[in-house]
């Protein structure tokens, strides 16, 4: 394993934070909960700590081994390989969904007359370049991008402070706790549960002992950060508008107007969105590529990056007919589809590991 592939816990935190916060910052989250979406985010984030605990516990039991490796140890050669392959598919599929989502954003809001395939292929090429550079540069770039992200959010929040109406956040729990819990469950699968993909990347984090703590803290911080941003969006826009607009943060930023000069800061959100897309797709691609290299028997993952990227891009174009199909899939099918990957399988693996005791190396 070359040293270019090792990251420290700060790098892991940056990747994870970017992965979680990036796209969720721009999209509407937990809309069933209306003005309580921030509460749903906190609950979903809190619940996801249990999911996170599953795969970080596995990572601690099998240090320096990825999910592809330890599923073979726990489930046997063939079944383990099958599980590994399923996770690779999950990474590929998730990457394709993010790419498509991203392409839709670009073609609707930024480049209306550009074909979506051009946007998707360009972003895919960028991600493939980043992934070929290795995990370490990617983690460092994420550090910088996450810092800029946080600064951007703080900056735009200060500038939009004059439009914040806290009464928009009331009444709390207007229709009882049920919608909030429903929303929280949805949030558990997207975005928080998706971090299960990091089970493919955790073996490269040093020191191994710090992984669990870092992942837990980062997921918690991301949940709080997202809750704050969405509370801001609702406070500025009101619950209805925040739930129905496709990119509420974009609308919020359009409220900014300082001295008739500092306005139309859409570029901030656009930049945010592109950075987010890059981080998320890159992590999916990196996880899939390194996982596949390991699945095939410890090859170098770099030659696999471009072919996998091409498959991912093609999949993202073919997978939906149109944007409504995408929304429907994301809302209805995705949470159910994700459960086995995010909860059941890690639970099964961890249970096996606990029951059988720590296997010999």
């Amino acid at each position, binding site marked *: 394993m070359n040293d270019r592939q090792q990251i420290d816990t700060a790098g892991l935190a940056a990747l994870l934070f970017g992965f979680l916060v990036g796209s969720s910052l721009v999209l509407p989250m937990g809309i069933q909960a209306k003005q309580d979406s921030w509460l749903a985010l906190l609950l979903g984030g809190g619940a996801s700590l249990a999911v996170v605990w599953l795969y970080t516990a596995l990572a601690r039991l099998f240090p320096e081994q990825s999910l592809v490796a330890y599923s073979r140890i726990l489930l046997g050669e063939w079944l383990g390989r099958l599980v590994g392959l399923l996770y690779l598919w999950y990474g590929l599929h998730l990457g394709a969904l993010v790419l498509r989502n991203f392409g839709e954003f670009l073609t609707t809001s930024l480049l209306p007359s550009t074909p979506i395939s051009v946007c998707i292929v*360009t972003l895919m090429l*960028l991600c493939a370049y980043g992934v070929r550079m*290795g995990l370490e540069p990617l983690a*460092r*770039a994420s550090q910088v991008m996450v810092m800029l992200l946080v600064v951007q959010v703080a900056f735009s929040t200060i500038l939009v402070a004059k439009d914040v109406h806290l009464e928009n956040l009331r009444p709390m729990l207007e229709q009882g706790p049920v919608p909030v819990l429903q929303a929280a469950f949805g949030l558990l699968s997207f975005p928080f549960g998706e971090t299960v993909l990091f089970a493919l990347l955790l073996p490269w984090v040093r020191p191994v002992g710090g992984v669990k703590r870092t992942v837990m803290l980062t997921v918690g911080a991301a949940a709080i950060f997202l809750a704050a941003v969405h509370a801001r969006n609702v406070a500025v826009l009101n619950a209805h508008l925040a739930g129905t607009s496709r990119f509420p943060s974009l609308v919020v930023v359009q409220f900014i107007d300082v001295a008739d*000069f500092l306005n139309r800061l859409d570029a901030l959100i*656009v930049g945010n969105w*592109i950075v987010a897309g890059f981080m998320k797709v890159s992590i999916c691609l990196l996880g899939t590529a390194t996982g596949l290299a390991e699945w095939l028997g410890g090859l170098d993952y770099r030659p696999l990056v471009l072919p996998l990227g091409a498959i991912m891009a093609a999949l993202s174009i073919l997978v939906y007919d149109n944007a409504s199909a995408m929304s429907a899939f994301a809302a209805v099918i995705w949470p159910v589809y994700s459960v086995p990957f995010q909860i059941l399988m890690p639970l099964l693996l961890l249970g096996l590991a606990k029951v059988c005791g720590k296997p010999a190396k």
Partner: protein
Amino acid sequence: MAQSFWRRLVRETSPAGLNSQSRGSGDRAASAGTQPPSQPDPASTILQEALAQAQFTDEVDSALEGYRSALRALEGRSGTDYRAGVLEKAQEALEQVPVPTSLGAAVAMLKELFAACADVIFRGFLVGGKRPAMLLFVDGMVNEERIELSVLEPLIHWGTPAEAANGGTDLPTWLEAAGVTITQAVPASTIGMVVDAVLGGDTVLLVDGVNHAVTLSSRGWKQRAVEEPASESAIRGPREGFVESLRTNTMLIRRRLRSPHLKIERVVLGRRTRTIVDIFYLKDVTSPKLVEEVRRRLTRIDIDGIIDSGMIEELIEDQPTSPFPQVANTERPDRVASALLEGQVVIVADGSPFALSVPTTLWSLLQAGEDYYERYWIGTALRWLRYLFALIALVGPSLYIAITTFHQEMLPTSLLLSIAAAREGIPFPALVEAFTMEVFFEALREAGVRLPRPVGQAVSIVGALVIGQAAVQAGLISAPVVIIVAATGIASFTFPRFNLGVAVRLLRFPMMVLAGSLGLFGIMVGLIALLVHLCALRSFGVPYLKPLAPLTWPDLKDVLVRVPLWLMGSRPDVGEPLNRRRQALGLKPGPGGNGS
């Protein structure tokens, strides 16, 4: 008396080819035969006899014969590469030979090597009027007066002829006894060492019957005076800049760091230029691993010639395909001194006024020495100004292209209207317009650098008037583009290091194409790719964006701001310096006694 004797000696020995320019042994024999000295003088006779009675040992003979046949073979027509290789080997063999005891043999070998070198002088004389000896030096590289007064005169008049003839075989003892007052006298045991010393500007003394030579330091060539550096000027701070002479440069550095821990190691690079390259580091600060790495990368170089330190830079980089400079260069000794104090290694090549320092980071390339000499508020403000303009230099024109082509709605209405009015009737798309103007601007800059000074003025007038004004009036180029190009031009001149500025200027062009085809998305794609590239880049193992990525909080004190000197307690962790603390605590000054 002494002077007249010496003059006579010169006059009478020179026709015999002893003081003549060397032209190979065959020619020398011929000229000696056709032009015998009119009056046989005892001194010149002894000398000629000594040279004629050269005693060739087998070793000398075979080396000489090999070299001569290699030389002859070189005159053939085909396979010259192979023959040049043979010659190189023969030369190496010849240079391995120890200095023969017989003066005649030694001179024969050296004349063979220095055949047809019009500037190499062989000066024969008799020590104490009895023992044949020879001085070797390159005309123009030595201080002749010093040789004359401190070497020739005392040796010629030394002791009695009998003493000279039967004297010992240890040259340094001799020189001591004769009162030769040259500060550095180092024995040389092989022909190769003699050759190196002569070509390096030293004078070599060979004496008959002694199995080694002595190199006498006598360098004295013309060199440029120490002046203010042309490429890095400063309002405040030292005004000295490096020159082309290595010795002067080492002096300039040593004078700033009067510590015995300042070590200077020497390597010789370039097969033919034999350029002396000095490696500087502070033994008690610099990481030994770093020094070892620099040594390893330098000694790996096997090349014809090193003409400037830029060539070394290109051969020791970590990532040769990157547009970004990974080795810092400077003309300022004060910058070198502060780089050494930060634990960096500095490389200075003879013949180049640019010193290299490694490792370097993007941030240190954006710093100027003056940041530290002026008040820290000024330093901080200047730094942020540079960051801002670095960004403008990179994406200024691309933002203009992207917004006017794709995202007009992002501009405030009144601004949009005035830009639209200016662009009305312009026959080109924004990309073509801006790209053309940028290319012209680059051409203008290049012409300004290369042209002789009086013509340079004409270029700037043509540039400003024709391109700036006429193009706008003719309706070919819109005025906003001219403004953007001018602003970017100014921005690209704010880089304290020329090579970083060029890298950013070059990257501007692909950014413009990206902006012209994909708008803001294209710019973001370019910026992210650049960020990932910079994150992957290393300079001698140190991440290029350190301390921003990987994040090193304490070192941000010298990147995001320039904190006051009394807060700069620790050395930046670039290249793992040996001791991090560089000054005492509590240096903050105040009224009524300094510090707390």
